[in-house]
């Protein structure tokens, strides 16, 4: 999908969704929000953003997309753009949080769950092995895997994380090969 000035993804042929609005840019942003709200919130949670701040940061990313499009900025890949903005906001929020309370080393991995996720996962031997392995991966490798699981290509992941494509390829390669080994342990 490519949007921006006259990007083809703005589907005007199907008509507006919901009440009439000022411009199709509204509709596009709302449509993206409906599609991406949960993945963005999950990603923010894994960055270590407190649950109470997830919705605010998630919406902030979409509002910033709206502002960018409204000002005529080209956004060739809105999904990656949203995740990039969300990541930056999430890391800033985490830093702010760290000023008030010291983060432990694993603050960027699941800080969530009303139920105990491990309890459900550990019942399955294969999932338990993968869980232990993933928990032991360096933070960047985990995030590469997560973003790949969200459907991003290596180049998009590199853009979101601010690293090279070769770094992403190496991270994913190492992780998948280790997962393969863990399955056969």
């Amino acid at each position, binding site marked *: 999908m490519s949007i921006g000035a006259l990007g*083809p*993804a*703005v589907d005007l*042929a199907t008509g*507006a969704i919901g009440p009439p*609005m*000022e411009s*199709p*840019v509204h509709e596009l*942003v*709302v449509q993206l*929000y*409906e599609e991406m709200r949960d993945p*963005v*919130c*999950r990603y923010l*949670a894994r960055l270590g953003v407190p*649950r109470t701040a997830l*919705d605010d940061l998630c*919406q902030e990313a979409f*509002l910033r997309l*709206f*502002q960018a499009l*409204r*000002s*005529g900025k*080209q956004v*060739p890949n809105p999904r990656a753009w949203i995740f990039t903005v969300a990541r930056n906001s999430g890391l800033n929020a985490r830093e702010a949080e760290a000023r008030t309370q010291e983060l432990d080393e694993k603050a960027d991995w*699941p800080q969530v*769950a*009303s139920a*105990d*996720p491990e309890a*459900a*996962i550990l019942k*399955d031997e*294969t*999932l338990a092995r*993968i869980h232990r392995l*993933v928990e032991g991966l360096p933070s960047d490798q985990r995030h590469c895997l*997560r973003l*790949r*699981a969200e459907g991003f*290509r*290596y*180049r998009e992941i*590199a853009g979101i994380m*601010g690293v*090279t*494509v*070769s*770094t992403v*390829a*190496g991270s994913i*390669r190492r992780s*998948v*090969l280790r*997962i*393969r080994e863990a*399955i056969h342990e």
Partner: protein
Amino acid sequence: MNKLQPLHPGSEDLLLFIDGELPEPRQAAIRMHLAGCWKCRAEVEELENAVSQFMRYQTAVDAAEGVAGTRSSADLRRKLERLDRELGRPGLWSRVRHLLTLPGPAFARRVAAGILVMATAWAAVTLVQRLTPARRMAPAMQPAGSVQAIAPTLPPPALPKPGVPAAPPALAPAGLPEIAALVKLHTLGADLGEPVETEPSADGAVTVICRQVGRERETEIRSALAGIPGVTVRTEPAGPQDTGRRPPTTLALGSGGNPLERALAGQLGGKAVFDRLANEILEQDDGLMARVYALHDIEKRFPASRQAGLSAQDRAALEAVILDHRRAAIENGAAIESRVAPIAKALGLASPAARQPAAPGIFEAAQRMDRILNMFFGGSPSKLTGAELGAELNAARAELRAALEAVR
């Protein structure tokens, strides 16, 4: 060190293959290899299984954690409307699109939108001319995409959006359905690697086949081709992806990577600089490859013998498309060179201008550059040493430069 293609691709290559991340020639080579190799097919299944198990794990974690956005889209709508009011008048683009979506006669809406765009453009041009009279002619005097611009000392040129014409090409109308369809698809940028194929028939008609291009894109293509006599559009599921692209023969791919990356990052002023350059170079490389494959495809469909039999009108239309692809390829090549040059300098490589290789075809030269760039910046494994990588990069630069010069 064995520089020949290894008998079996390694796990690294196979993972890049299943993720669709290898350069297309390598992707095609592995696809062909897998068709006849049980060992590697089993290896691919193992890797696919690891990915599946990770996805099962991730789904289970997501479900157990129950993290989800709790605010409705209506809430976001309200915020967007408030933001809109705070920001004031909608931008030009919004107003144009709004005009186009208003109820009423389509012609009147388009005329109104056109007037708004032209009036704004006229006002902008007038303002710029008044403010900067001395620079008025300068940009127009620059030959767009000149290969002469390929010089390490030049600042990086503005990046054309990869895969999309930087400027609308002046395309001539065509009479032959196949060329008329080609021109329309080119106007849409649908001849740049999208799964859209053209199937001519003996009676001169042509069928455009869309393979999973997405609903919106297909609507766009159908709409553009509607009304052209002799052109029909058909939808088909994804095919075998046999692009006819030749597998790589020059370099060996195996395990490894770019052994120079760390040293380069240090010399260029840090990893952030290297990362930025790498991403920009690969973007431009994508654009270049899309253009050379499009040119290659035209060459195959319209060899010189066939072109000779075309009407003057059809030849002109075809030529306009070819020139537009060449112009964009030259721009991509210049953009790559302007970014690679500082890296070559940091490596202490001699200027490629000192070498005068025989001018290769643009297709072969771009493929060679694509392979080395992907080894350098794209994570494609390589068995070459740092020195060999550097030498190959320089040779590819010289070859690409000569090839682009030849089609300028």
